[in-house]
């Protein structure tokens, strides 16, 4: 039980960037643009956030400026994906792959220019944890959810609710989903497919940038090439596992976050001791493949995601 009490806060720390980035992927894919560049955008967000934080650091708000910079960097970087795949009709998977390679190159290149090494300098505190007054004193729940929690974890929950509201309760959300399901029909109703898709990709850039910033400022001491280590692809897995739905994404993110926390504490749990660590790392990926097979045949994902938009197609 005590173990569970220490594990849940750690699972939350791991789950937070996964959920945020997966929500980013949701906006992009719902608008009809596949975004496998989440990983790369997260790297750019993480690098920018870490750099700005290091530079501003004795300032108590340094990490928040870092996060803001990470979000902006994510938006700018995702513009490339939007421009290539929407204006120039590039294959979205190729463009995403290019961005993932580019992100590793650009961030480490800039580290060498700014910091003369293949990583950023280390920041001293990163993002500080907060405790909610009053709630933090609650028995059990206080320790689990309200004491010494990163503010970004609350941001993630709010973003889930906000995303659900935007995507399912507003005209904008309806238009966004229409562009991902049947862009020709959407266009015939006077919706700008190009505009909606740009919005979708740029929101995904902002959120993936936020996710990268969160990840480096809460789980690392500096940005390195390995700071994001596949989280962008696990976020993609969350999106699929969560059936492209905000609450599904939250559930999948918490589950994958928990499985990562479990891998750290497996040595302390008798019946898990025998399971090699690497199998825990594999879990999200294997489950996603299984989920894909289970969901196959049912139309869960946006129908037109990944297709080239041809206004003249019937």
């Amino acid at each position: 039980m005590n173990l569970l009490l220490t594990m849940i806060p750690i699972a939350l720390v791991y789950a937070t960037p996964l959920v945020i980035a997966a929500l980013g992927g949701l906006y992009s894919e719902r608008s009809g643009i596949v975004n496998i560049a989440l990983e790369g955008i997260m790297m750019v967000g993480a690098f920018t956030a870490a750099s700005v934080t290091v530079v501003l650091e004795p300032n108590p708000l340094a990490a928040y400026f870092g996060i803001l910079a990470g979000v902006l960097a994510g938006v700018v970087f995702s513009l490339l994906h939007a421009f290539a795949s929407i204006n120039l009709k590039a294959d979205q998977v190729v463009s995403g792959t290019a961005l993932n390679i580019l992100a590793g190159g650009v961030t480490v290149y800039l580290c060498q220019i700014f910091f003369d090494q293949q990583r950023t300098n280390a920041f001293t505190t990163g993002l500080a944890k907060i405790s909610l007054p009053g709630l933090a004193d609650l028995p059990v729940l206080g320790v689990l959810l309200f004491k010494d929690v990163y503010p970004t974890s609350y941001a993630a929950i709010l973003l889930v609710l906000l995303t659900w509201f935007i995507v399912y309760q507003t005209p904008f959300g309806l238009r966004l989903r229409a562009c991902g399901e049947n862009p020709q029909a959407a266009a015939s109703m006077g919706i700008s497919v190009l505009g909606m898709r740009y919005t979708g990709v740029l929101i995904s850039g902002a959120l993936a940038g936020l996710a990268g910033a969160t990840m480096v400022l809460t789980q690392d001491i500096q940005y390195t090439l390995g700071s994001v280590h596949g989280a962008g692809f696990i976020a993609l897995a969350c999106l699929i596992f969560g059936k492209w739905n905000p609450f599904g994404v939250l559930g999948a993110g918490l589950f994958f976050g928990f499985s990562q926390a479990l891998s750290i504490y497996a040595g302390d749990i008798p019946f898990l001791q025998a399971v090699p660590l690497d199998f825990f790392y594999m879990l999200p990926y294997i489950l996603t493949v299984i989920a894909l097979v289970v969901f196959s045949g049912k139309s869960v994902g946006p129908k037109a995601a990944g297709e080239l938009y041809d206004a003249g197609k019937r």
Partner: protein
Amino acid sequence: MAKSRSALVVPSIAILLGFALGAAVLLATGRSPIDMFYAMLQSVSGKNLRADTFNPRYIGEFIVQSMPIMLTGLSVGFAFRTGLFNIGAEGQLMVGSIAAVAVGLWVQAPPVIHVLLVLLAAMLAGGLWGAIPGFLKARFNVHEVVVTIMLNYVALYLNNWAIVSIFKSVDRIKTEVIPATALLKSSALAALTNGSRLNWGFVPVLLSILVYWFLIEKTTFGYSLRAVGFNKDGALYAGMKVNRSIVSSMIIAGVFAGLAGAVITVGTFSFGRALPAAEGYGFDGIAVALVGGNAAIGVFLSGLLFGMLKAAQPLMQSQGIPKDIASIIQASIVLFIAMKYGIEYLMKKIRMRKPPVAVEEVES
């Protein structure tokens, strides 16, 4: 004719733009693009033009860097030809490497036969790993992109687990050295190139390029794969077995990538390695296939191009140029290739702006 010309023009423009962008990045950050080009020249020719020295070791390393990415390029290219996007070359390569280590360490056989068994095992393992997304695509219509991405990570952790738990690595980083009978190493080739890691791996690589060309261009099997790639419904209507083509195409793609795993493990190295992260051979393969237009000769040439970029990295770093400029150039080339429609559109515009006089000259 117009089509084959654009197959050459678009990659050439993309490569030029990529290098121009790389040079601009260097200039903007106060580094010298000239140094980068010198480093690339030295990695290809072995000649240091500034110090006027010659070291063939650079040539050897350049070839060593080109070999595996030609194979992953063939892997990605073969799937592309059937309309499939194989992001999974990286994972197929790692599974191939596991099989190579297993046969290398556990099987005893006479020299040449042992190394052939190693290569075969790696190809088989890679093929099986490639069959998974192929089967899931054919049977359940699950998109191969996501499955192959996920399987890359599964393969990475499978490899790391195998190195420690199955092959009993003592330092948890590398296995014991694989017996010489199972290695592609050649002291003659190493001596010829002043102690580089050059090895017999180039033989299976060149053979693979030939096999690729023959399969795709000269067999009905290759023709039906291409037909599926062009138009799945049309191929189905013509009586081709589309689902079977998808599975066989992914298996063959996996075979090429699996072979790359063996070439790295028993050629470049001589032991299995646990990896903190994927090494990017799969992504290199995507770049190689795209630039090479998924054609055998194209993959060969673009494999040399990106092999040169990889080989020049240590040289650049030693001259104060961050080696990551190579990734920036590679990514921009891929991005520019992806923007093919944009480039073709621009070319059309430029052509239309030409004065009509030129046309008359041609006619007279």
